[in-house]
């Protein structure tokens, strides 16, 4: 037994450094995944990088090498800069709908278990089940500025009709709210799952200490959900631009005046509407670089925080 206990970590340590008898045995297991990763992720990413230096309209043979011209054109056109700014706005605007709102909805439903809670949870989750384009088209009818139900409703309380999607002041907010309905519902489900794993002993202790419902939520429940919140927050920041894509495509096509555009829709427009494959690839490369640097910064920051907290201990 002693031999086994001492030998196993050594083998693991060796294999982790790429040596020892197990190192060779790992490759057959790793190869399929690596091949798929290269075929679907790293290969296309490399190809995109190459295309960003070429002039190509997709239908003919790739044209000549144009150096950094695609990057220069991209940075010269005002639309890309605006789309980048709007992407950050989407990330900021969707963040509370990805974290705070679904967390409180999930906690409220968790605190009142029963049939009503289940029905309510199902109703909230319904938008996730419907096809995204169907949802967007439905919103288009509801938000029709001349005959839509939304204006009928606000008319009841005396508000004037609004051009929800045609007014630059409201279009982005509408896209965020329409997208948020789905994101909130889905994340509420994830929070519900996280709530089911709470440490019951801490809750019982709080009850024994006569903590109020709010105190229990504030000091016991929410802190135990911080890992879920962190994960959903990061996902929201990274994916917000992609989540709104369908709604932007169906409802506004990036307008009015580019206020609902974002870098992903801009890449699609450049690549598949204008067939500026080189510029679209340059935009994709910039986005990739941005997120790579942001991830690196995040990793360095968390590592330094970890070191600092270890030192404090």
């Amino acid at each position, binding site marked *: 037994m002693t031999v086994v206990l001492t030998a196993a970590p050594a083998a693991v340590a060796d294999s982790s450094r790429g040596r020892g008898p197990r190192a060779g045995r790992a490759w057959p297991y790793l190869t399929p995944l690596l091949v798929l990763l290269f075929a679907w992720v790293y290969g296309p990413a490399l190809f995109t990088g190459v295309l960003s230096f070429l002039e190509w*309209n*997709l*239908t*003919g*043979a790739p044209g000549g090498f144009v150096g950094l011209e695609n990057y220069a054109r991209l940075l010269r056109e005002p639309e890309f800069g605006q789309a980048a700014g709007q992407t950050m706005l989407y990330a900021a605007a969707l963040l509370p709908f990805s974290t705070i709102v679904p967390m409180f909805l999930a906690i409220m439903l968790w605190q009142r278990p029963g049939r009503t809670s289940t029905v309510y949870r199902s109703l909230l989750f319904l938008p996730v089940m419907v096809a995204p384009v169907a949802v967007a088209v439905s919103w*288009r009818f509801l938000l*029709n*500025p*001349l*005959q839509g139900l939304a204006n009928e409703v606000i008319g009841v309380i005396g508000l004037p009709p609004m*051009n929800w*999607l*045609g007014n*630059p002041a409201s279009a982005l907010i509408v896209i965020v709210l329409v997208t948020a309905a789905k994101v909130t519902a889905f994340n509420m489900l994830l929070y519900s799952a996280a709530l089911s794993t709470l440490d019951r002993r801490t809750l019982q202790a709080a009850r024994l200490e006569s903590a109020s419902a709010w105190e229990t939520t504030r000091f016991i429940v929410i802190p135990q959900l911080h890992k879920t919140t962190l994960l959903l927050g990061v996902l929201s920041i990274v994916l917000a631009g992609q989540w709104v894509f369908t709604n932007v495509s169906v409802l506004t096509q*990036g*307008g*009015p*005046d580019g206020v609902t555009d974002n870098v992903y829709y801009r890449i699609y427009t450049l690549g*598949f*509407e*204008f*067939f*500026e494959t080189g510029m679209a690839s340059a935009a994709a490369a910039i986005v990739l670089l941005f997120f790579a640097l942001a991830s690196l910064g995040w990793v360095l920051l968390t590592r330094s925080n970890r070191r600092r907290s270890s030192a404090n201990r």
Partner: protein
Amino acid sequence: MNVFRPSRSALSSSAPSSSALSSSALSSHPARRRLAALLAVGSVLTVTGCAAAAEAGPAEDITITFSSYNYGTAGAAGEGTQALLDAFAEKHPNITVVPEAVPVADVLTKTKTAVAAGIAPDVVQLGYSKLAEALETLPIQSIEDIAGDEWTDHAEGINQALIQTGERDGTTHALPYTVSIPTVFYNADLFTAAGLDPESPPTSIDEVAAAAEAITAAGHYGVYFGAVDSGKSDYLTQSVINSAGGAIVNEGGDITLDSPEAIAGLTAVQDLTTQGLQPAVAVDDAVAAFSSGDLGMLVMTTAVLGNISAAAEGNFELRTSAFPTFSDEEARPTHSGASLVVLSDDEAKQQAAWEFVKFLTSKEGYTMITEKIGYLPLRADLAEDPEYLAGYFAENKLLVPALDQLATLAPYLSFPSAKANQATVLFQDNAVSPIVLRDADVKSTLTEVADRIRDLVGAP
């Protein structure tokens, strides 16, 4: 990606043409040269081994694909396209046409990606606003060459201005299919309620504004010019600018969309919005409002006639009048709609495609297109021929004003270069939309966008 098409055709029926194409298109790159050699060997084997198949022409059973933005849509356009397909199938049971539905705004995108993937449709219904770029960037075949001896007889009688729009390198590559021009649809009931005479519709932009003012005062929406087209076409913008005495491009190819005439034309449309006579909404919302009887006048393509007629039936009296004048000169609307192009490089499929295109653009085809969908007849004699459309026009007066303006039709203009579509989208999104719907300064906006388009297409 054309690489794979010849091999497919070689395996079916036309090996000589495929090997010719493979040698020309594949000669530059080493990998392609190897592939070309393989294809050539394949072609030779096919010719020697399948001589009987190589002789097969469209007389044999053959299948072609047809990409159409009308097919599969709800209402008259979809039903009319299906009727055309059914009629062709009855006449040519050996040719199977497989229709492929595509959204109107995505025609060029879908076609280009299909070409890149080597699965290009054989025949495409291609909007005129995308045609210039498509002719530059897609492997569109010369219909004139495919038709051979039949061309002269078939082309005779078709609107020559429209045939010329589809010419490239001296031969016709696109035949007019579903063509419409902007007209004024108006609600005669709202006219009467506003104290206007439906028998005397407005003929100039000033009269349109006056009528819209009366309709608005009666509690309805006045007028809507569909300049901000959902398919990103600039046909109505061009119609306004042409009628004001300008053009987006002059005869020398210079960009002139910021000319004083263009500024005057778009200012007149903007004034309708700023004066509260035109709702600042998307075109689909305006069509819905007109269809439900809330909008007095809708200035839009006759392509929507079928659907609007159906909506108006039993609700209000629908009438039409000619596109209004914007200056002392007569109105010069241009056309929207689509042409037919052939992409197939397979000889047998080309012949089948020609039979299909020939039917769609025949007297019978154009008659069905007018009767069932509401597009304009593109053979001048059909409207007066009792065998074809004379009876139809005697009973259906709604297309008559547009039909009368067909004679003075201005050609649809495209920005030069292979980036024509990008330039048109830039024009519509960055100039027309903010000017017409959001009160942007007309002169500075047009000047700024014109400069960007000059830079984009490399024209003065």
